[in-house]
């Protein structure tokens, strides 16, 4: 079964909410049926065909071409299948996703994978703020799944996340893992300030030196065995240039915190072999 191809022929003037561009929404539809699916161009109802040329029937495998930086909510609530975006993508990609895979070959803007509970989102470029984070006013961020950003990401990565894995191949902004409930964030570059503020449980790993909040306390320098499993998995998912044997076999300084909360979170900083 060949993939369903969508090519952006008209750039939206304002953000386009395209939650219908998801395997479940287009499954079994004809080209015409897909072109007639509704999208929101700002606050105006529009059709997929107003912006995209569709080739092929609806399949679980969707390829989308063009600069989609203004196209939001691609892959919304998907539970299976694969979406490949051959360029940049807008906000809320993979919102509510529970399974399947999204691959973004360019950059992503803010809020990659909000309300995600399963599946995997891979961004080969950079990402904006709030990767895997809770929406404002919500108490819980992602509850499962994997978000792999090969470039850098901005502030509040994994805000209030409860489960899952977020890997950042480059640098992270400020407030990484703020209010984190559980889960794992691995940053292979540098982190900004105030990492883990208000963290309850969970793990933040960083390969570079980082300033630790005073409400975190040094525990020990050791080799966390579980981390090997994560790093080996990430190597198999395209991070082999960022993760090498020294990271897998190396030692990490463990800091426990945040003492203003339950104090069961941890920050692990790579400290050589």
């Amino acid at each position, binding site marked *: 079964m060949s993939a369903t191809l969508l090519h952006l022929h008209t750039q939206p003037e304002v953000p386009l909410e395209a939650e219908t561009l998801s395997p479940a929404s287009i499954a079994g539809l004809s080209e015409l049926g897909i072109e007639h699916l509704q999208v929101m161009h700002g606050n105006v109802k529009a059709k997929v065909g107003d912006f995209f040329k569709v080739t092929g029937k609806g399949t679980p495998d969707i390829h989308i071409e063009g600069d989609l930086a203004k196209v939001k909510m691609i892959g919304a609530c998907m539970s299976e299948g694969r979406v490949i975006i051959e360029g940049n993508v807008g906000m809320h990609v993979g919102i509510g996703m529970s399974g399947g895979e999204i691959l973004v070959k360019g950059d992503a803007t803010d809020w990659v994978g909000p309300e995600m509970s399963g599946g995997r989102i891979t961004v080969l470029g950079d990402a904006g703020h709030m990767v895997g984070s809770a929406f404002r006013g919500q108490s819980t961020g992602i509850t499962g799944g994997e978000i792999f950003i090969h470039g850098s990401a901005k502030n509040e990565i994994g805000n209030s996340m409860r*489960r899952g894995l977020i890997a950042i191949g480059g640098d992270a902004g400020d407030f990484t893992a703020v209010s984190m409930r559980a889960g794992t964030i691995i940053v292979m570059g540098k982190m900004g300030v105030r990492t883990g503020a208000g963290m309850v449980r969970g793990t933040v790993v960083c390969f570079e030196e980082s300033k630790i909040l005073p409400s975190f306390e040094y525990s020990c320098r*050791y080799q*966390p*065995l*579980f981390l*090997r*499993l994560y790093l*080996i998995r990430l190597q198999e998912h395209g991070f082999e240039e960022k993760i090498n044997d020294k990271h897998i076999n190396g030692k990490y300084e463990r800091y426990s915190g945040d003492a203003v909360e339950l104090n069961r979170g941890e920050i692990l900083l790579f400290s050589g072999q």
Partner: protein
Amino acid sequence: MKVMRIKKTEITDTFAEAFGMWGARVVITADTKQWARAAAASMTGFATSVIRCKLEAAVECEVPPEATPDRRPGVSVLLFTMSSKTIAGQLIDRIGQCVMTCPTTAAYNGLESEKTVSVGGKLRFFGDGYQISKLIDGRRMWRIPIMEGEFLVEESFGIRPAVGGGNLILLGTSQRIALRAATAATNAMREVAGVFLPFPQGVVGSGSKVGSRYKSMIASTNDRYCPTLRSIADQKTLPANVAAGYEIVVDGLNEYVVKEAMRRGIHAAADKGTLIVTAGNYGGELGKYKFYLHDILN
């Protein structure tokens, strides 16, 4: 009765009677091969026969670092019990007491199966509330804080129906020849993936029969093959030139691997000049599986 020979070795026209069991596979890793082996040796201690040990277990093979979950040297251990209800307790006890206590080790499930039992999910309580779980690629791991750092154990282990009690009996013109043949046979049989030989070095010096003249004994010495009882016990089928015999018990994840191990074992024993290869059975009424020696060789 058909007579079959491999070189000068006679293969008796009989069958090995084997039983249905439940199996699990544990992959133990450690910083060094030596520590992984130490944990495996401890874990498989006192696990020769379900008759008194309630479990049969042994090392299946060593696993190279590139094939283990954490890329450290590993050892694969197979453990079988008679019931699916008792295997979880054995896994918890043996991983908890023999693997977790061994420096630098971790324990992973090595058997994919729909039926699983909670192991790490129980052992985690050793962490006294400080344990941490991690879901990695769909597999839940437990990090248990210990004095050297952390012990990592998988939450669930797969179990599946298996075969226990496949066997060969090797009879020789001298004890030395019989043992040499048994050693060669066990070396050949261990090459088959999915089987293990639960007795010391795979060889049983004191094979047993079912029952005894004493009511408290469910098994007793296999007097038909005891050379010292030649003029006392019923040994009609034992040729005069047999001086000693050994049994090899083989358990496996399915009947095909048990058969293959037996086939290789027969050939290896024949190569080393054993006089007779036969097998133990109970008339075919107790076990679920019958492995006819001639069929295996054909």
